[in-house]
């Protein structure tokens, strides 16, 4: 029993190391292609873009979101902004109405139907060749759109471009932890971009060619992760998705562990169920790295965390049982012996060295991701927060998502 568990453990570690090495090799191959632009750039031409802001009860942030769009360094007559109130019950609509007099802003109010329905309403009204969304809890950097559009200009075959999403104004431990995670996300997304294997076109300011929707149809519910579903659909139909690392979008992140838990439950549930829906894409040569790397990596990471969860539960039970045994046999008893730190008792299983290796590459990803997002090298305690917090609670939302999938229980948005 113990040896089987050990074998599984080493197989999973093998995959984990493989994934990290794969990312790192991709980085080494492409490092010269990563450019970080400072200051303004000029395009040969400025194609018209429609940006939709779907909103549901976002009165706290939507004003700033719209202002960030109005401040984009992009010709005003080439930028159409649609503000869509998806049946909010708070003051969102009143704030939206304040922008109705802007010539390039159109406002809509509809019955609540979910984010994808709001985006689809925007799609039906779009007359431009480029279309994108911006979540109402996120703010676009002034240079973001023009940099994204430069990617389309450079390569005709690019069908969608995702920006670098980072945390807006982190205020507490939970947000600091996510800050580090989002920097890692920037690195991961860039590498997946090089591999042609991006699996999410995030709600904050991914820009698409309108042709994508003309060809493949509008947004779908996608298990409450419509931005993942559309990326899967594009990958299945061989539509190229790129990542523009120096286009920055700042997003408001959950402030408490509870809110973070709900968000991640939704994301993981979305990943599991979209992957099930698109299982025919798995391990097919014609779907490329998306099929052989991105999806298997996601599946393996779920297996790893499930295994670790089982192991943690087992170890905890074992620990409690041994403490109970001690208490039961010898009662409360404190040893007068001082515990000497003896190097002899350091764990030297080969897994320890491999885990140290994995962690070093994760730390590298966070530091380099931050360099791409802020063009400076920073080492911060946030990494520690991230590794600690996510190590403790990630297994729970993951297992929860797995159980929800098995029991066919759908998570709510928030």
């Amino acid at each position: 029993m113990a040896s089987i568990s050990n074998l599984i453990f080493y197989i999973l570690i093998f995959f984990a190391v493989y994934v990290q090495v794969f990312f790192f090799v991709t980085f080494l191959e492409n490092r010269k292609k990563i450019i970080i632009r400072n200051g303004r750039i000029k395009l040969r031409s400025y194609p018209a873009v429609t940006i939709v802001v779907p909103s549901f009860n976002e009165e706290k942030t939507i004003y700033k979101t719209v202002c960030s769009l109005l401040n984009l360094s992009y010709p005003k007559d080439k930028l159409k902004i649609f503000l869509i109130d998806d049946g909010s019950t708070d003051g969102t609509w009143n704030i939206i109405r304040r922008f109705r007099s802007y010539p390039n802003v159109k406002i809509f109010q509809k019955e609540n139907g979910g984010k994808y329905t709001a985006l689809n309403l925007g799609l039906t009204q779009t007359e431009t060749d480029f279309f994108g969304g911006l979540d109402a809890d996120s703010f676009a950097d002034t240079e973001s759109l023009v940099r994204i559009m430069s990617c389309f200009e450079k390569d005709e075959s690019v069908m969608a471009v995702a920006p670098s999403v980072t945390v807006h104004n982190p205020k507490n431990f939970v947000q600091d932890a996510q800050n580090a995670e989002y920097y890692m996300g920037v690195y991961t997304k860039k590498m997946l971009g090089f591999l042609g294997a991006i699996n999410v076109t995030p709600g904050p300011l991914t820009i698409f060619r309108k042709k994508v929707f003309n060809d493949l149809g509008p947004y779908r519910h996608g298990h409450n992760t419509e931005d993942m579903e559309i990326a899967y659909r594009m990958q299945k139909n061989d539509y190229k998705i790129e990542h523009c690392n120096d286009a920055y979008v700042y997003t408001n992140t959950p402030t408490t562990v509870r809110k973070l838990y709900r968000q991640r439950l939704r994301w993981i549930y979305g990943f599991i169920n979209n992957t099930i829906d698109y299982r025919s894409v798995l391990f097919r040569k014609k779907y490329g790295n998306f099929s052989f790397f991105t999806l298997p990596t996601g599946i393996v990471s779920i297996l790893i965390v499930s295994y670790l969860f089982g192991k943690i539960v087992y170890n905890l039970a074992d620990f409690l049982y041994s403490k109970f045994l001690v208490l039961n046999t010898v009662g409360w008893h404190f040893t007068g012996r001082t515990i000497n730190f003896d190097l002899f008792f350091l764990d030297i299983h080969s897994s320890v060295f491999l885990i140290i290796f994995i962690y070093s590459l994760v730390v590298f990803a966070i530091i380099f991701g931050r360099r791409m997002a802020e063009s400076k090298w920073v080492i911060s305690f946030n990494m520690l927060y991230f590794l600690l917090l996510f190590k403790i609670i990630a297994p729970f939302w993951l297992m929860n998502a797995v159980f929800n999938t098995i029991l066919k229980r759908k998570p709510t948005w928030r």
Partner: protein
Amino acid sequence: MIDWKKYLIVFLITLSLFLTASYLSNYFGSKKINQLKLIQDEIAINILSSETQFALLSESSCKNVSDSVLSGELDELGRKLEWSQENLGSTDEVSYLKKYYSLLQIKDYLLMKKIATGCKVKSAFILYFYTTAENCSECERESLVLTSLRDKYPELRVYSFDYSIDLSAVKAMLQIYKIKDTELPALVLDDELLTGFHSIEELESRIKESFKLQEIKPMDDKVNS
């Protein structure tokens, strides 16, 4: 479209990382084994030297001899061996070290017994027999009791032996005390055989008796002289 060469190269890199990690693990493992060997040799020299000293000077050096024997080091070695067995696996080297350790324990026990009779000192010894061959929850609990007792009474000497160890000296002890594998855990305290689990309270009261004798004797000597 897919760069299979890259998948293969990453596989080979990962494989070499695994091999490196297992090499490191073995390297540090053998370093630990060497460390254990050094400790054992040191203890062996100490016991041998005490034995020789005792034989040379006989009763006249009672005080010096009993001071120079190092049971603390044996304890530490025991803990390290136990850890090694759990973490490095029951390799040939570890089981060889375990045999050596059992032998050292017996030698230490015999020497202490000789000193005890020669110097008219009564020491508290416990011989403890357990098994790792089968699941023995009583043994686990008895070990806890003994560890806790040893912490309480630093002078108490507990010599523990694996029943299933392939060492003739241990087998001889099993014969002397007529210990059978069905009666494990077994304790020998003051030449009396106790089988099965014995609680901390019971053993403590027995040990206290043992200790009292030990404490009273030197006082008597003083009174007599």
